[in-house]
């Protein structure tokens, strides 16, 4: 299947899951979907039959509220077979935030912002201690960059020279209305990261950026669009955590067709 067609199909699955479950963060999921797709198609050295392999690359979704986007990619990559529409139902393993004790392929449980990045740094540091060559990717949102623990962790990553860590920033400007991050590239560079920028919806740019290696940790600033693919959702804060009505669902599905 052609890549853009595949992305559109996954977006339809996400929308249908959220519409059915009456829960989920659609716009955030659409913001990171291309990043996740590229990660799981030729970047991450892992597979569903190697989920316990110590040598596997790790991915941590620190902005856990984009869980349905993560689940859709894990399903597409063969990690999970549960119907996405079961999300948030009583017995479902698929919650509103990813749970590593329930969902195959999820490395770290996240949800409260500012937790995934420190844990990713800890994993990368531990792999260094164990002389394990696996790489660690962690994805945070620009809103999450308000959290002090993110910056604390970046300090440690630099100090420990964790060149096995790639920090991905989903820079969709959702925090602009609260806190202006300023020149986040300069900030990450000042924190000792090798900074690479990419269009967060351009797969070639993303792949090049995500495969960048340096003698220090790498930060990929992915310029993204929140709600990418649906005009009404695009950069509209009201859609951060909203379920479409029946009419909206029908219209959005048509727009994605």
């Amino acid at each position: 299947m052609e890549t853009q067609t595949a992305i559109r199909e996954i977006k339809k699955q996400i929308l249908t899951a959220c519409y059915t479950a009456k829960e989920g963060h659609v716009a955030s999921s659409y913001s990171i979907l291309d990043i996740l797709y590229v990660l799981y198609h030729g970047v991450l050295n892992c597979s569903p039959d190697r989920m316990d392999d110590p040598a596997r690359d790790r991915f941590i979704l620190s902005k856990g509220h984009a869980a349905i986007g993560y689940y859709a990619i894990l399903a597409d990559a063969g990690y999970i077979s549960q119907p996405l529409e079961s999300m948030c139902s009583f017995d479902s393993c698929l919650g509103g935030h990813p749970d590593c004790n329930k969902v195959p392929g999820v490395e770290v449980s996240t949800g409260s912002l500012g937790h995934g990045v420190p844990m990713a740094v800890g994993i990368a540091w531990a792999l260094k201690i164990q002389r394990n060559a696996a790489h660690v990717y962690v994805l945070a949102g620009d809103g999450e960059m308000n959290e002090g623990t993110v910056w604390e962790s970046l300090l440690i990553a630099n100090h420990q020279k964790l060149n096995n860590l790639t920090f991905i920033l989903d820079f969709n400007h959702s925090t602009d209305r609260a806190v202006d991050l300023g020149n986040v590239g300069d900030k990450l560079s000042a924190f000792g990261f090798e900074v690479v920028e990419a269009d967060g919806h351009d797969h070639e740019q993303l792949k090049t950026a995500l495969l960048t290696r340096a003698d220090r940790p790498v930060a990929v600033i992915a310029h993204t669009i929140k709600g990418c693919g649906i005009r009404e959702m695009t950069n509209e804060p009201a859609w951060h955590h909203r379920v479409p009505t029946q009419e909206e669902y029908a219209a959005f599905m048509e727009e994605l067709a």
Partner: protein
Amino acid sequence: MKMRQQFPRSIGEIMDRDERVVTLLGDIGVWSFHEVAERHPSRVSNIGILEQAMIGVAAGMAKTGLIPVVHTIAPFIVERAYEQLMLDFGYQGLCGNFIGVGASYDYSGLGHTHYCPGDVDLLSVIPNMQIVLPGTAEELDRLLKEAYDDGQPTYYRVSERENALSHPVRLGKAEVVKTGKLATVIAVGPMLDKVLEAAGDLDVTILYYTSVCPFDYETFRQYHRSGLLIVCEPYYSGAVLKAITEQDGRFSGKVCSIGIPKSYITRYGTIDEEDRVFGLDPASIRARIEAVLKEQAANGRNDGGSRNI
């Protein structure tokens, strides 16, 4: 040797034989770990003054199979990084060891920011958090070596207060110090010597607990026969009684709770001075116990109903 000197030595011995163990210091106790760090430079780090990230980083290390030991002052582990303890370690079921100094008002001259009387209360809410209060350096060594790799998050409360003699303690197991008829006195960690001084000559059962979570309910059930329970805790009082009622929702009898009352501690001075203010010195404990025994005798034993005295 005091507990503060013991735990770097114990951790060093554990690290000598177990390559999975890593130690993260929050810029506290660094000198005391310098010999261990020289032996294991890649596994001992002064991570800096960023306690929330320190716990999160430790959890990430635990994800890969390493066993982290994290050390700093109690309020900065328990209160500042509480969500990390709960979500990163507790909820995700990771093994970690958290060694806090500065129990209650051990830093008695430094003020409320450095006091931590609420640690046991707070941590007891985390369902799988083990809470350990050794009474001596030897007990700390024994408990650390028993539990450091048991797959659970465990908080070790290192206190300036210590008992004179060590007991053969085990995690989650109480020691029966003496038996008697009039009351059951539970002494938690470093309260034991005070309880022995206050009530050692009385006809009471004395049980010694170095673990609040898991709580050894079975020993309590077996030895508590009098209808009067007296709990002596070196922190905001109540955790032991909560542990008992969690096990037995029908627990009844008279209860006298001796511990630090929930309040902001605004004074400085010495540990002894604070103890006297809160009635945690042996003379005050003796007076409380005598008063409740007298009341118990006046009312008749086992007169039913549960109430605090």
